[in-house]
């Protein structure tokens, strides 16, 4: 997994970066899932209450919730029916360049029987460590360790 830099964070604060991963299978084919995650009307039907998305690298948009406000989005990568990456602001009504953001990567692949496997990764959750120390990205082994705690 690639590590990304977030220019909005002060370089002198020790930060750790955590990742959430999810994998699930849909009956619908990748083309259908792709529309659901890329077309604003479709996104608004399940993700929030409203959405705008300029579907090209560098394209801007937002996701809106009546209760929570609008959150800025910037597209980073688009491979139709296969891969979508966008970064979204952690703070409402804050331009993507002016505050912390996390990176969401969607990977679609055909599943046996005509369905779709979706693998989702959200990375860049940050928390300041309380002492000066090395800065590192969390990897799989930590996720496994955390799972081990509950298991």
């Amino acid at each position, binding site marked *: 997994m690639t590590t990304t830099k977030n220019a909005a964070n002060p370089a002198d604060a020790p930060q750790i970066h955590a990742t959430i991963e999810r994998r699930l299978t849909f009956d619908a084919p990748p083309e259908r899932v792709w529309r659901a995650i890329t077309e604003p009307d479709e996104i608004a039907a399940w993700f929030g209450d409203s959405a705008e998305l300029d579907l090209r690298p560098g394209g801007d948009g937002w996701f809106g919730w009546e209760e929570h406000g609008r959150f800025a989005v910037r597209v980073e990568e688009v491979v139709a029916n296969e891969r979508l990456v966008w970064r979204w602001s952690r703070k409402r009504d804050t331009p993507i360049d002016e505050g912390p953001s996390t990176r969401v990567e969607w990977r679609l692949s055909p599943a046996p029987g005509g369905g779709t496997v979706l693998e989702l990764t959200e990375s860049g959750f940050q928390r300041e460590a309380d002492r000066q120390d090395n800065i*590192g990205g969390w990897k799989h082994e930590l996720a496994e360790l955390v799972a081990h705690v509950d298991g």
Partner: protein
Amino acid sequence: MTADVFTAVADPLRRRLLARLREQGPLSLSELAAPLAVTRQAVTKHLDALARAGLVRVTREGRERVHRLDPAPLREVDEWLRPYAEEWDERLARLRAHLDERPPQGPDPEERP
């Protein structure tokens, strides 16, 4: 002093040490240091940091000190991240429901001008 668990796991080498203890069970310093391209002193320093955070327990077995993983402090990490993970579980459940409502066989307006 108990060190912050977030600090303890922020270091890649320390995460590797934790992963090995999880996969292989209790290990001695020699066993932990062997596959790593760092000195025993460096490994000792990192093990001390993990011990201060409560992630590694050290016991003496015969002539050797044995290191054992204690994952309990990671609960704090898990609890921090859990609400974000649960948000995704809810969103993806709604995506699934949304896809079920509109089966793929339906007409696609984009392909029928």
